[in-house]
């Protein structure tokens, strides 16, 4: 309805799927012919504008051969040594044209090698960093793994920081990421299923799960949703989040994302599935519970009582973050009788002389804070300090002493801002909810806040992530799953997986005597 209307307006006449589009040069399948020249002609024609495609012709005995690879994506040494050198020196003059199996079996020293018989497959191979070998008189080509491009090293991730716990973080390389997971779960049941998404980007996407734990319906549903995607490119796992969401219109994220392998491994062990996308250090896990936003890997590594305390603080922060400012506005403009007397006249003293209504002040301050936050994230690091000085001094101190804003308002805004960072998974949602509640509180006061909160609650109750209620295990209440909500039971008491996540293997730990 409204959504369709907007999509139509925003995308002009081309919004329908079956509009004509320009054909890719490789849309038809081209067989590799026995003549190297013909094959190379095709390749040259297609890659005429690609200066980074290297085509190297050489003699294999007395047969002409060529390797095609992309400069920068391959390990040059490996191409020279394992492919070109062995082929040039390892063959003698009476090499037969049909000896491709001999090349595989006796000559090329590479772990991963694949026979192809279409140029299309060859292209796919060398475009992702492998070397494509063709020879005269052979109707097949070889894809040899020579991948070796630059990548970031595995280091401390920016998000999900912990004091105690692993410091490793995912990087942009999908193979490294899957290896990080495999290193934590050394099980043959750990499945890594690959899908390529993106007409142009051909991005590798891996679905990782424990075959003997995760429900097969979940895996097939994830696959179904991923395969349906017909898009030019996937540049980050964030793209997939929308396709995997049960309810993309909701402001709440129904798929969790993490930058830490230990978190992803824990989720996989619980029976969830992880989706790793090449080029993104953020790994998606599904299905997601709302309560997962309040978990930190550290909870599981420290004493459960301390962890419970931290959880309480996180839940509290969430509510403070969305409610502090609306409550302040509601109290000062509608319910002054609820403010303790002494506080009332302190607040009245601070507010007297400020030219704006509380709501306007609150709105101004939060918007200014969001701007500062955004500037702080985007600015180059050396300039970042300037932003914090401007933020702290100019906006905070000076606005108060200039009589533009009351001091209690600055406190309320600061508390709101700081507490939002306690639950990074919901940080953006919190900001949105806060604005909604702020408007409601300014218009209807405490009644507005109540209505807003009820609305949010009803919405949360209606959400499902891959068929699992978002608010589980609180609504619907499942006592056995309360061991990992606000209250965290000790490891020895966490015997079962969350209900429904693993129907075939619900037991995690067996009680020993």
């Amino acid at each position, binding site marked *: *309805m*409204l959504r369709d*209307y907007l999509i139509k307006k925003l995308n002009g006449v081309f919004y329908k799927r079956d509009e004509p589009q320009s054909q890719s040069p490789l849309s038809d399948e081209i067989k590799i012919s026995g003549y190297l020249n013909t094959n190379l002609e095709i390749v040259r024609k297609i890659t005429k504008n690609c200066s980074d495609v290297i085509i190297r012709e050489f003699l294999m005995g007395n047969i002409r051969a060529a390797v095609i690879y992309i400069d920068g994506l391959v390990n040059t040494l490996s191409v020279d040594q394992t492919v070109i050198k062995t082929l040039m020196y390892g063959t003698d003059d009476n090499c037969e044209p049909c000896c491709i199996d001999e090349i595989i079996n006796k000559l090329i020293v590479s772990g991963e090698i694949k026979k192809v018989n279409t140029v299309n497959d060859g292209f796919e191979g060398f475009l992702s960093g492998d070397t494509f070998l063709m020879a005269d008189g052979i109707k097949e080509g070889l894809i040899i793994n020579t991948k070796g491009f630059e990548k970031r090293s595995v280091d401390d991730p920016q998000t999900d920081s912990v004091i105690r716990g692993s410091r490793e973080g995912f990087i942009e390389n999908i193979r490294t990421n899957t290896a990080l997971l495999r290193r934590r779960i050394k099980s043959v049941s750990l499945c890594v299923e690959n899908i390529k998404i993106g007409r142009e980007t051909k991005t590798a996407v891996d679905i990782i799960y424990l075959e003997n734990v995760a429900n097969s319906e979940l895996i097939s549903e994830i696959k179904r949703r991923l395969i349906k995607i017909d898009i030019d490119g996937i540049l980050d796992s964030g793209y997939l989040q929308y396709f995997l969401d049960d309810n993309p219109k909701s402001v709440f994220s129904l798929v969790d994302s993490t930058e830490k392998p230990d978190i992803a491994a824990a989720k996989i062990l619980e029976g969830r599935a992880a989706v790793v996308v090449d080029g993104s250090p953020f790994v998606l896990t599904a299905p997601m519970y709302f309560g997962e936003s309040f978990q930190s890997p550290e909870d599981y590594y420290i004493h459960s009582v301390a962890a419970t305390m931290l959880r309480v603080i996180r839940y509290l922060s969430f509510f403070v973050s969305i409610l502090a400012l609306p409550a302040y506005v509601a109290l*000062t*403009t*509608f319910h*002054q*009788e609820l403010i303790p*007397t*002494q506080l*009332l*006249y*302190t*607040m*009245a*003293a601070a*507010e*007297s*002389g*400020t030219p704006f*209504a*509380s*709501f306007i002040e609150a709105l101004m301050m939060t918007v200014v804070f969001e701007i500062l936050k955004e500037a702080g994230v985007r600015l180059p690091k050396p300039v970042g300090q300037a932003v914090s000085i401007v933020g702290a001094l100019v906006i905070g101190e000076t606005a108060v002493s200039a009589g533009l804003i009351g001091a209690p308002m600055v406190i309320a805004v600061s508390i709101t801002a700081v507490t939002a960072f306690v639950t990074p998974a919901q940080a953006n949602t919190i900001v949105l909810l806060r604005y909604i509640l702020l*408007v*409601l509180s*300014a*218009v209807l*006061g405490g009644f507005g806040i109540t209505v807003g909160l009820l609305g949010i609650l009803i919405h949360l109750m209606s959400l499902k992530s891959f068929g699992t209620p978002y608010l589980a295990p609180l609504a619907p209440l499942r006592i056995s799953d309360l061991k990992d909500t606000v209250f965290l039971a000790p490891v020895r008491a966490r015997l079962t997986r969350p209900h429904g996540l693993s129907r075939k293997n619900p037991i995690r730990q067996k009680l020993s005597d």
Partner: protein
Amino acid sequence: MKYFRITVSLMMIMVLSGCWSSRELDELAVVMGIGIDKSGDHLECCTQVIVPQNVGSGEEGGAHGEKPYTNFITEGKELSTCISKVSDTTGKYVFMSHNLIAVLDEDAASDGIYKYLDYLMRDNQLRLSVCLFVTDKSPEEVFNAEAPLFEIPSINLSKISEGFPESLSGQNVTVLDFINNMMCKKKGSLVPFITLVDGKIKVCGSAVFNGDKMTGRLDEEDLKGVLWIIGDLKGGDIVLDINNNTLSLRIGRIKSKTFPVLDKNGEIYIKAEIRGDLYLVSDDANMINTIGMDAVVEKLNQSVEKEILTSLSKTKKMGVDIYGFGDMIYRKNPAVWRAIENTWENRFKEIRVDISADFSIIETGSIIGSVKK
């Protein structure tokens, strides 16, 4: 499109309706106390309003020397009209929710205060926890009293009232308490009586109300005797005089039980049992060791009983049942009460009250005896 329209209309309803009934903090004149002064049939109302700018809070406190409150004197026929006239002067909305006290002039109290109480109860901003006081000065003087520790005299007064259970010098009476007393069977009320000494507020006894009219006063000594029976005591010091030596004791915990006894012969009398734990706080003559703990306790019991009896005889003469004996009888046996209801004033003057005090001294401080030999 339909949803688009609905969304837009909903937002318009929200935004265009504006902030109905919202008021900014700086649009309020926050009333902390009201004083009621009656001269003839004209009502003079003194309203204490906060001036927030002058409320000192650290270095950023307001202009020095300026008082953080102002008092407005308004006249009118009714209390409500007097109070709403405050906004004629201030230009701000008179906000009564934080009103802490109502100070009544002695004359106004003698004429009956139900008129004011009715307003204090009905107004939806005012709370039933407003504390009542009666003064012999004008409320304006009370509101201009020095309140060195509290900045605002009204707050000082309400704190005094809160401190009553621990000071043995009065009883905290809120509008709700007063109304409750009025609804009891022929029960009087005690309202703290304040006066000014050297420009500062001082509590001196209580005003005695019969129904809604003030009929007399109890001085501090008499009030103490009454409080033993009705008070909810949590502290306060008792000075005991034994052979011209004094020792003082602090109240730790008091449990008093008062109940009517309906005799088989038809006689009605009241029994009051007072039990309590006390701490010895000063005994420089070492009475505890010279005459013994039991003797001290015995003397103490007698002295308190005497104190109660003295004030009882005085209050009986006044003829106002401030103890609520009548109500106790009614609760025990409504039929008996109905029979004696009409003659209760006279019966009260003659009623027998058996008092038994039974204290124990549970701590004598961290020294064994006094050092002086």
